[in-house]
């Protein structure tokens, strides 16, 4: 065992890549939940994004067009969910689960002719000058566009939720839709928009998986990433920056596990694979125990259907 064999700069760089799909999908879900909707279909939207992004990427030869298609596919699927729960007033939990199952199935069907094909490459963009900095440059400034985009999204979403009037309206709809409604805000429209945004983000997350991280299409390739994204939102207490840190911890454990193995450390792999989920459960317990935090960040109307009082 020789810890010096692990290149920590590369380790951090690869954990960022591994975590990016999680960051994107979880940020989308964060906005959805802040508007008071619980969409358990993240996994389904991610995999639809993954397969559509891959197909379009292969057919057009451009990973960026593929990524855009992934966003649209995720958004389209989420519209179905939005219609069912907002217009038909169906149960959100059941509809979300159905969305996941539906997404996994249809993605397998769509992707069948595309297994074992190479995807177009996405180039990394080294930020001028600062990417030259040893260690830090390798860690943070030699990535592809989507990684930077995910980091910018964290900032933008934080700003949107905490510093902008529209963000406040979105939160008020999530906290108490009846009050928001009586103040004249269009609850259904706002939630529609939030759900669509969440779908697009999950789609991009999936597209990143099939176009950059692997890069290949395989049936069921999201392998539970959507569920981790959902857990991350709770783990973060509905805060964008904590969400980012959480995602990097999750991704980091996976990458660290591989690195430790390669230098010959005798570790229990099953235990390490379990660690992210254990951490989520622990975080949930800790969050629900801290009483002084009031409502713990969870939106008041999370998961409740909005019925217009006339």
């Amino acid at each position, binding site marked *: 065992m020789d810890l010096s064999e692990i290149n920590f700069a590369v380790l951090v760089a690869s954990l960022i890549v591994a975590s990016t799909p999680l960051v994107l999908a979880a940020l989308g879900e964060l906005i959805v939940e802040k508007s008071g909707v619980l969409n358990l279909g993240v996994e389904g939207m991610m995999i639809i994004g993954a397969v559509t992004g891959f197909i379009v990427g292969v057919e057009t030869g451009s990973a960026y067009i593929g990524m855009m298609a992934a966003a649209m596919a995720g958004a389209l699927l989420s519209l179905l969910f939005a219609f069912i729960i907002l217009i038909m007033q169906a149960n959100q939990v059941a509809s979300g689960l159905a969305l996941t199952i539906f997404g996994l199935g249809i993605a397998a069907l769509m992707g069948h002719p595309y*297994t074992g094909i190479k995807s177009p490459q996405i180039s990394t963009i080294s930020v001028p000058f600062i990417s030259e900095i040893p260690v830090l440059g390798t860690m943070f400034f030699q990535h592809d566009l989507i990684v930077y985009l995910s980091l910018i999204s964290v900032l933008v979403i934080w700003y949107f939720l905490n510093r902008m009037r529209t963000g406040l309206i979105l939160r008020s709809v999530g906290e108490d839709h009846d009050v928001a409604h009586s103040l004249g805000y269009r609850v259904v429209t706002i939630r529609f928009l939030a759900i669509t945004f969440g779908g697009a983000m999950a789609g991009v997350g999936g597209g990143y998986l099939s176009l950059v991280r692997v890069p290949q299409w*395989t049936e069921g390739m999201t392998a539970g990433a959507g569920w981790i994204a959902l857990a991350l939102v709770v783990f973060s207490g509905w805060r964008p920056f904590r969400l980012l840190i959480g995602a990097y911890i999750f991704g980091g454990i996976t990458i660290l596990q591989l690195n430790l193995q390669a230098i010959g450390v005798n570790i229990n792999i099953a235990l390490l694979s379990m660690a992210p989920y254990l951490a989520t459960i622990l975080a949930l317990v800790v969050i629900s125990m801290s009483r002084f935090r009031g409502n713990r960040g969870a939106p008041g109307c999370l998961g409740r259907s909005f019925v217009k009082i006339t």
Partner: protein
Amino acid sequence: MRQFMKYFSASFLFISMVITSSIAIAADYKVGFIYIGPPGDHGWNYQHDVGRKAVDEAFGDKVETVFQENVPESADAERVMTQMALSGADMIFATSFGYMEPVLNVAKKFPKVKFEHATGYMTADNVSTYSARFYEGRTVAGHIAGKMTKSNTIGYVASYPIPEVVRGINSAYLAAKKANPNVEFKVIWIFTWYDPAKEADAAKTLISQGADVILQHVDSSAIMTVAEEAGVYAFGQASDMSAFGPNAHLTAIINGWAPYYVKKVKQGMDGTWKGAEQTFDGIGAGMVIIGPLSDKIPDSVKKEAMEIRDGIASGTLHSFTGPINKQDGSPWLKAGETADMGTLLGMNFYVEGIEGDIPQ
């Protein structure tokens, strides 16, 4: 709503009828195949499907083959094989190690159906096993890897700690060490046969730790893609994978199941098939094929590799020829001695020189 349900259940009934009727086959002799992943993986499953198609071609209308892909190594495998047997399959090829228990269970229920289980070690009156001496191919690959590495670090992405995989690591290591005494192996176990995301992560990790040649004992072509991007070398697993890494691909250890499948189906048809047989063929019988060698390999190394291949094929060379010590330094094979079948089939130790432990 009721109207809708009526249509829905009617169409559901129709669809299920279509499905069952397509499974109920009409030819004289029916052969079923179950695959652990999709035949489109361009790896392990792809080659089994090549074998299946060879059966189709060899017997024409007399034999009908069916296959089921993505069958998990669990009770699902039992269900799928039971379904195949019930719809009239005369012979079933179960093409992954983890189908061992399910095969034995289903074989007990259908004594007239003949079962062929790949890479397993348990047989019954109507269950035979077959496996390839992949380790022979890994001796050739190991030699090339040892000659091609500049960092003297070779990465190895392994699936499950079963004898077949351990054998491959040992065989590749011994050959690489012989070709280049400074060589060092780094092994990552990912506990899956087919998960491109995990395979890619493992390969990236190995490369980040200095490996410039990657060997794999997992099924997808993701590692080849990663190697190509990173500018290092890799070997195709089960199938030729040069399409995924034209510069990275050194050669491939290709599984040649077609002759075996055709032979066994023929035996099944004319009644000479026997149960409780264990086939273990290698380069000599054509069950392991060394793919075309890349132009990146110097001619002298190409020549050596071909000599090793031909030596193994003719039996003058054995992948495990003593003196070889086990990892802990205790002697395993004396000088000139070669490994016996039993030890090979149950191999659960590293040879001397490999660092790290085999996970339990």
